[in-house]
């Protein structure tokens, strides 16, 4: 039996975030929270392989009680079990403290119900750090394949998996032993459109809730803000760009405007050599 565990995060939909021009604060009003898109594809991949091999998919997330919505969405896609790890002590965790909590939870699940593949999205769209996946893998001493675009083969008898991952310049096909951790690009699998019974089941599903004391205990010194090596020193808004000179073909003629523009471009240091043209 195949057992996949997927670690997900509920995030504010960053495509909807705006800045208040007067106060420079984030406007959170009307910003929906969603299941991190890369995580959704990771869940889809886990479910796809569960359906091929038989077995089950467990979802974990560390977050506020409202993250139940995202867990239900994973159940809707076909996951079987969902765990919400939620407690005040976890608040303010950076990626290091987060990977500590998640790795402890994965360990606890694994002890009772051994895991073959540990899925993450490649990064969360609110922080874009891409660190939690590799972090958890290191803590658990698992091989990690990041930026996975395709799972080619999962062999439960011979205990290996073949995964295609994307690097900057090419794709690599990597074989690792099970269990393996992977972080997923969107290409890994398409989001399934759930059947109505699956959807209805998910709407009624109540995830297990784990806190800082039960069913497992954590080292309080490693949790939340206290357990985070990094802290936010300050925040601000990106600088506004200032409009440059605008010329008109009406006034300079087409050739005149083109020459003026090229002269200005070539006037920038280093530009002439990039364009292969002298100033």
């Amino acid at each position: 039996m195949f057992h996949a565990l997927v670690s997900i995060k509920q995030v504010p939909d960053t495509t909807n975030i705006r800045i208040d021009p007067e106060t420079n604060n984030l406007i959170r009003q009307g910003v929906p929270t969603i299941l991190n898109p890369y995580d959704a594809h990771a869940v889809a991949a886990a479910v796809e392989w569960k359906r091929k091999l038989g077995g089950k998919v467990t979802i974990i997330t560390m977050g506020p009680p409202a993250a139940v919505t995202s867990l239900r969405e994973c159940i809707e896609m076909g996951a079987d079990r969902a765990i919400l790890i939620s407690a005040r002590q976890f608040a303010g965790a950076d990626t290091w403290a987060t990977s500590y909590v998640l790795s402890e939870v994965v360990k606890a699940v694994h002890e009772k119900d051994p895991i073959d593949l540990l899925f993450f999205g490649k990064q969360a769209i609110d922080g874009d750090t891409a660190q939690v996946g590799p972090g958890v893998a290191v803590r658990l001493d698992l091989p990690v394949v990041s930026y996975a675009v395709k799972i080619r083969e999962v062999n439960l008898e011979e205990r290996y998996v073949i995964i295609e991952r994307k690097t900057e310049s090419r794709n690599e096909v990597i074989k690792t032993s099970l269990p393996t951790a992977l972080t997923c690009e969107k290409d890994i699998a398409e989001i399934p459109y759930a059947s109505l019974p699956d959807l209805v089941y998910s709407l009624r599903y109540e995830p297990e809730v784990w806190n800082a004391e039960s069913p497992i205990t954590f080292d309080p010194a490693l949790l939340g803000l206290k357990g985070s090596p990094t802290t936010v020193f300050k925040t601000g808004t990106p600088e506004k760009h200032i409009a440059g000179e605008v010329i008109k073909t009406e006034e300079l003629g087409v050739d005149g405007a083109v020459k003026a523009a090229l002269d200005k471009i070539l006037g920038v240091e280093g530009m002439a050599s990039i364009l292969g043209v002298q100033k």
Partner: protein
Amino acid sequence: MDKNQKLEFDVIVVGAGLSGSAAAAIAARSGLKVAIVERGQNPGSKNYFGGALYTHSLLEIYPDLWDRKPPLERPVTETGFWFLSKDGLVKATVQGGKVNSNPIDAYVALRAKFDAWWAEQAQKEGAFIIPKTLVVDFIRENGKVVGVKTDRDQGDIYAPVVIITEGVNNLLTQKLGLAKHDIKGDSAALAVKQLISIPAATINARFGLTDNDHGLAMSVMGDVSMGLPGLGFIYTGVDCVSVGVGVTLEALREAGIKPYELLQRYMNHPMIAPLIAGGRLMEYGAHIIPEGGWKDMPQLYTDGVLVAGDAASMVNALHWEGTNMAIVAGKCAAETAIEAHQKKDFSAKSLSSYRTRLDKRFIMTDLHQYRNLSHFLKTHPDFMAIYPTFINDALGMFFTGFGKPKGQLYKDILRSLTDRRPLLKAVGDIVAFGRTIIGI
């Protein structure tokens, strides 16, 4: 829970809007097993209006409304008409007196927020909400509707009675043959709106509102629609202002204008621009209003089916009523469904008591009374162009006619009307308009 179990309910409501969630709440409260099937990500995510909600209808569903802390914006403490000319404004507004009722008659609201809450209240009454699911057809047995088909695999849901509150694009109602025809371009308006973020204190200052417990809801006529049959509006939320304009579809097409440019033109009007200056666009949207009312009303029931709200063309275009009709009709539909369950009879004949219920309320009376309004506007295409501008000129002249013989002033005022429309025709317009709204 067994995933293979047949999905069966006592009542299916199609659409978690104002009407649907009201119907679901009433039916669930009586102990029926109710499912609301909603196509949006969440209840409210597809719903859009100007606008204001009417307190009487909310209280009718939840007498303990205020304890439930509804997410309303400001109460409407000033309302009425603004008449725009090219560069001027005449206000005919009411505040205090009858408007200062307890509770206040109307509240400004934002539908995505309100409808999510409204559906949650139905859920608390026991209704089961199935979001992200589109109803595409009906399940029929012996010619009777016994459930709905959705766009999902194994997507059938069964119930002996289905309440359709699908909104203005009533494809399901049409599919059942209940609607005689699709929406018509001359009796439906496209309304476009921008929701603009402005600090509450600025809103209070600009609109002359005492505090955040005072709000304004205006219908704006005249230059706003460039002479097309249509109306503008402006509503104050707590820290946002809704500005919009609605024009009949036919007129929009004939004029060949882009609705969002018409809206921008209204927002740029010298009397409107200062009210929203410095504001930030929070959301843009558009929706069709089924202004045909009575004339476009489909058959409201058939075997196993009831129709309510926009899907049933329950809109009073002149009074901007629609949400309250939708809510009350939803309640009437639910009561009918409850009665049908008691009688165990879901035939059209049994469900015909829905019509009786509606007849007893303001809904049918009002819709009948205003049945000729869209016809009037169609046959008097200049009505919205001429009179608001005239009012501006007339009052403008009246209040600036210093140092002139007053007899001449009145002649000038009269001429500013007759230049636009011969006197007899103008009198005819007014009489016809009066007859239309009185319902003769």
